[in-house]
């Protein structure tokens, strides 16, 4: 009785999901609209997808964005894994409080502040050292690595906190060196968290407008920057088509990743607690 879904909660859930998905549904619907006017339905058409495929500016920006996102996510994966490992395993070291702040603060820092401060750093570095020479893809990648590291670290730390250390101890007892234990035991066991962290850093980078705008140079216009400037000029069905493709890609990726990550975890959970349904009723 206590654990049933009340009508009020069911209605609120329905309202919430309609609110979350209604705008996305209308966005997708109108990407197939034959009319140039985004809001007047004039029949089904894939015209805007064809036009999008021929839009050179968008294609170039998409390639730039993907290159930045892959580099940034990979860099963030390395740094974030090290940071998450340190935070979870090393309980005490000098500067731990500062380190903890540096790892988690980028998660909530308003993007305009992060973007402005990084740009000013790059300008100051260029003045003092001559590096980095101007703003380019490199400066965006550095900015996105910093942001992504925080997300990867939190995901890895959470995974390590729920980690059964007896396997590591067994390997150490059997004479494996700590380095080998890390690569042969720890890393494969936290692999799902690493994948999730990489994907998170990748999508954050792909989606970022504000930080990229501050740190980009003339030759490094990213996809969100192109979308933003075209949206500022008005609604365009081409952007709807692009958004639909983007949403489809992300949804499929997340579903596949969720299966890869959730599958083994669920199996383990079931093995540990054989009859969860029986406890509930």
């Amino acid at each position, binding site marked *: 009785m*206590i654990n*049933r*879904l009340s009508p009020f*909660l069911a209605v*609120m*859930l329905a*309202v*919430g*999901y309609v*609110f*979350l*998905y209604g*705008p*996305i549904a*209308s*966005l997708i619907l*109108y990407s197939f609209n034959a009319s140039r006017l985004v809001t*007047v339905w004039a029949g089904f058409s894939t015209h805007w997808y064809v036009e999008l495929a021929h839009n050179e500016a968008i294609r170039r920006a998409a390639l730039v964005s993907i290159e930045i996102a892959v580099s940034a996510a990979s860099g963030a994966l390395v*740094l*974030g894994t090290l*940071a998450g*490992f340190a935070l979870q395993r*090393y309980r005490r*070291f000098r500067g731990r409080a500062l380190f*903890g702040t*540096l*790892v*988690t603060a980028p998660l*909530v*820092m*308003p*993007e*305009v*502040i*992060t973007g402005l*401060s990084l740009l*000013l*750093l790059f300008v*100051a570095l260029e003045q003092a050292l001559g590096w980095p020479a101007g703003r380019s893809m490199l400066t965006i990648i550095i900015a996105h*690595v910093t942001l992504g*590291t925080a997300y990867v670290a*939190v995901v890895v730390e959470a995974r390590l906190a729920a980690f059964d250390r007896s396997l590591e101890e067994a390997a150490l007892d059997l004479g494996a060196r*700590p*380095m080998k234990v890390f690569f042969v035991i720890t890393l494969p066991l936290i692999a799902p968290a690493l994948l999730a962290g990489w994907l*998170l850093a990748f*999508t954050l980078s*792909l989606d970022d*407008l*504000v930080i990229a*705008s501050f740190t980009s140079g003339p030759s490094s216009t990213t996809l969100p920057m192109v*979308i*933003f400037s075209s*949206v*500022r000029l008005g*609604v365009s069905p081409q952007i*709807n088509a692009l*958004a639909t493709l983007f*949403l489809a890609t*992300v949804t499929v990726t*997340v579903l596949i990743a969720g299966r890869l990550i959730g599958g083994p975890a669920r199996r383990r959970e079931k093995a540990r607690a054989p009859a969860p349904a029986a406890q509930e009723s």
Partner: protein
Amino acid sequence: MSDAFRRRAVLVLPFAWLALFFLVPFLIVLKISLAETAIGVPPYTPLLDRGDGGWSLHTTLANYQFLFSDSLYLRAYLNAIKFAGVSTLVCLLLGYPMAYGIVRAPRAWRGLLLLLVILPFWTSFLIRVYAWIGLLKGNGVINNLLLATGLIHEPLALLNNAFAVYLGIVYSYLPFMVLPLYAQLEKLDPALLEAAADLGCRPWQAFGRVTLPLSLPGIAAGALLVFIPAVGEFVIPDLLGGPDTLMIGKVLWDEFFTNRDWPVASAVAVAMLVLLLVPMGFARRLLRDETA
């Protein structure tokens, strides 16, 4: 290889990276907020100057005085707090029943319901804000529907006003409220509610006396995750807002990109940071407790 050496090897890379690309930049922002605007590359005066008589220090509080002297900045500040605060409250009122609903839903559905909350977080923020423009415009989907049903005879002004900004923030940040609330409510032991019922509590009394107090950490975490980024929001007031919805994040953007006044933009950033320091401290503590 000693243990201490190994620790240092693990720490040095992320620590150095974050110090250089997250901590040092703030010090530079602070420094430049004390400099004067100048025409040139970069467009500000150096703080340290080597003249004839050695080094001399030039700092000025003029940028901060400027922020206080022009009521535009103060209004943008208060606006940002108002928009972020009210939106956080609306997120809580909508997100709490959603999170509670997911916890109470049949076990088989829970994964799917949760995924549906997380999925928008993975999709483009910019695209989701853009979607509302097509819905809210004067000749947009919502106005067309209302006109067609005869409920209204003239299009409503839904876009480029405060309403659209509230809507945009609530829509964009709702998942950040639902997820920590769900994590907290899921830990709640149903036996506590059974005990309350056995002792004569009506369901809403049990909610007020048991569920709500025990979910406070989740409420706090969700509120901070919505409020802090929303205060600095730029995209939403820029795309959905109008002339009366200026927020401090947009002011910073305009100072930098339109006026090219780097020192004033830096002073705005410092002022915003001071405002957010207390809630950020709370957020860090909560995040720490959550993962530790």
